């Protein structure tokens, strides 16, 4: 009998695999998940002084595709020559999916743009509590919207608990319109109520125009839906749900009214036809090219719209339900948080504080965001000026509310997109749509 080559090689292979595997397993003692999440997360004694003679390097990770973050970094470096700031930019989608891993690494960036899904870093003690710095610098007076980055120790509820960062540039949503077409169709803007806005849609539709330009391939109908919710829901209900408070619910008559309004807009043909097949970016591009009459989007779209429509671009705030009511809208912004692994917390805090200053306000405003120091923003003309004026009303009415998908649950972004596509595709009723959102909420907050 001759030795069988196949059994020989198989045996050799198995032995070798086993040996290599065992060696590698012994080498990696870190295979237990979450084994290294025992960092300190309190800042301890703090001071607002920055060591001036020491060479310091800070790393900033962000998904900010405007000129704000790079502009702020450049200005900060100029002011503090001994501090080098390196920037790691990642595109939005990839940033959302990778930032938790990045922040868990030993080489975590000092500063990171805070996004939805990063709540998990709080119980993992990977974010630094910056409340002490906030007190030392007086951030409560300098930054609006700090509640959006204040979290409970389990990271599941926003608005109460410890402060984890600051909002350097804020964004909010409103209604853009095509001035030339509004004039041609005899539309009076701005409408005083939501009903009046819908009456304008009816007129535009009757004239053969797309009244509301939108794209829902990637869930862009969340913009109209969020602002409709802002108008209909009480701020208390809205924030409780958007911030993921225990036992909060979105199955409310007011929310149903918002969902029904949106569904009616789609069903009646006010919204871009076959909206589920158009991406949100393409919708902005089409509107900027002159398609349709109205578009509900954020101030981040202002630059593109102004470039496309020029003098013909107009803006007004989303009207309230009843005439003369307070203006409420949806917004977020670029928030920066701090890694608990940062070795230069004092320098990081100085950077966060720098973003509230007058010098930063010019950079922030130029990038199309609303600066924390609203008074220091250079006045602008045209569309950007209109948007800025709208912002002042929003601030006066304390009407800035969080997006419902950002901190209610980590999966809400995907769920909202799915449900909005079902709603726009006439596959679910407004009632079932809200129930779908609530199911996701309860799966997380059980």
């Amino acid at each position, binding site marked *: 009998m001759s*030795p069988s080559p196949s059994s020989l090689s198989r045996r050799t292979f198995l032995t*070798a*695999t086993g040996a290599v595997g065992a060696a590698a397993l012994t080498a990696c003692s870190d295979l237990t998940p979450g084994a290294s*999440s025992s960092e300190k997360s309190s800042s301890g004694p703090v001071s607002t002084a920055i060591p001036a003679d020491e060479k310091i390097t800070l790393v900033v990770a962000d998904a900010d595709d405007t000129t704000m973050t790079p502009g702020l970094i450049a200005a900060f470096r100029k002011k503090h020559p001994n501090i080098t700031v390196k920037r790691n930019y990642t595109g939005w989608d990839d940033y959302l999916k990778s930032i938790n891993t990045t922040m868990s690494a030993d080489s975590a960036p000092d500063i990171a743009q805070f996004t939805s899904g990063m709540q*998990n870093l709080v119980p993992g003690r990977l974010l630094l509590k910056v409340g002490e710095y906030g007190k030392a610098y007086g951030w409560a007076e300098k930054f609006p919207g700090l509640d959006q980055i204040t979290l409970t120790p389990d990271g599941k509820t926003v608005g109460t608990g410890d402060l984890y960062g600051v909002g350097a540039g804020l964004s909010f949503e409103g209604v853009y319109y095509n001035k030339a077409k509004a004039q041609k169709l005899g539309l009076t803007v701005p409408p005083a109520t939501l009903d009046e806005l819908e009456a304008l849609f009816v007129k535009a539709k009757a004239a053969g125009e797309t009244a509301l330009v939108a794209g829902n391939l990637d869930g862009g109908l969340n913009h109209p839906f969020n602002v409709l919710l802002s108008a209909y829901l009480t701020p208390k209900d809205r924030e409780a749900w958007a911030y993921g408070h225990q036992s909060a619910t979105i199955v409310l008559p007011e929310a149903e009214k918002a969902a029904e309004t949106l569904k009616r807009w789609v069903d009646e043909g006010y919204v871009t036809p*076959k909206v589920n097949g158009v991406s949100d970016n393409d919708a902005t591009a089409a509107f900027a090219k002159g398609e349709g009459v109205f578009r509900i989007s954020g101030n981040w779209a202002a630059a593109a719209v102004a470039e496309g429509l020029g003098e013909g671009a107009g803006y007004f705030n989303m009207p309230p339900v009843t005439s003369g009511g307070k203006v409420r809208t949806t917004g977020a912004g670029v928030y920066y948080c701090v890694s608990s692994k940062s070795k230069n917390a004092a320098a990081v805090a100085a950077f966060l504080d720098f973003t509230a200053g007058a010098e930063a306000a010019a950079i922030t405003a130029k990038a199309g965001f609303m600066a924390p120091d609203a008074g220091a923003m250079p006045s602008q003309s045209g569309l950007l000026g209109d948007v800025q004026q709208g912002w002042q009303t929003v601030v006066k009415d304390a009407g800035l509310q969080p997006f419902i998908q950002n901190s209610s649950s*980590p999966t809400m972004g*995907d769920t909202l997109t799915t449900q909005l596509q079902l709603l726009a*595709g006439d596959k679910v009723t407004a009632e079932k749509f809200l129930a779908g959102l609530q199911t996701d909420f309860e799966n997380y907050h059980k």
Partner: protein
Amino acid sequence: MTTADRLTGPAPAPGAQSPAERAAGSTVRKRPRPARSGRRRRRAVALLYLLPALLPYTLFAVLPLLHTAYLSLFDWDGVTLPSFVGLDNYGRIVTDPQLRAAAWHAGALILFFSVLPICLGLVSAAIVSRRAGRRGTTLVRTVLFLPQVIPLVAVGILWRWVYAEDGTLNQALRAIGLGGLTDAWLGSFTWALPAVGLIGSWVVSGLCMVLFLSGTQRIDPEIYEAARMDGAGPVREFMAITVPLLRPEFAVALSITVIAALSSFDLIYITTGGGPGNSTVVPGILIYRLAFGGGAVGVASALAIVLTVVISLAVLVINRLSREAP
């Protein structure tokens, strides 16, 4: 005698000696190398040759797979400390309606990634091989194979434009007077899955054709000649000779394409992201959503393991079936 020897069969050569004998220095004469120690050395040498491939394979394929299986037993958000839940994650997979939908979609994709491309590849291979050597066949072959060369992400972006409301497909429909049929294909609950599936067909068909083409070159031309003598036309030739004799290529094509269908992710992620609603959600998309967005690493790992097992079983069945004599 060692276990290894029992497995490989005893082959004591004349003059074989135990290590003790050798150590005692009883061998002085020069003589043929003892076969047993030679085999052992050959085995060691073989191992050494295997090592460069084995090491990365173990580190980057076997270990991560084992680690994924291990993680599937935990409830873990990816950051904080996990808790052991045993097989609960697998229980969730079986009962989740969304996952059942994803499984159906993956099944439907087999139609577009396997059945359709194999049929198309077969026909185009038959046509191209009959015209071998004539002008233009190389060009046709290259053009048909081209989609295989383009990165899938680029393919996805390209087809998003094709399928858009004012994209090439709708423009073409309008040009030939079928404007009433136009749709925003990727946003349609009815058409999104077939639309994405057809992109897959487009990508894979060229690969199938090249596979079958190499197969037809292996078939003895005399068989064709004999068939022609008996009065067989091109169609008869194709059905009676080409198709049956391409059995091994069928197995390879089917394995590759079924794997591509069941593990599809990038194409769908780029084109629809699983939408509209859940109408194009596949297991790959769910794994990605659960692990990276949803903070449910345990469930995602369990799903990944189940998917791996299913794909392995499918490939195993395909290979078993193709090995049987026709």
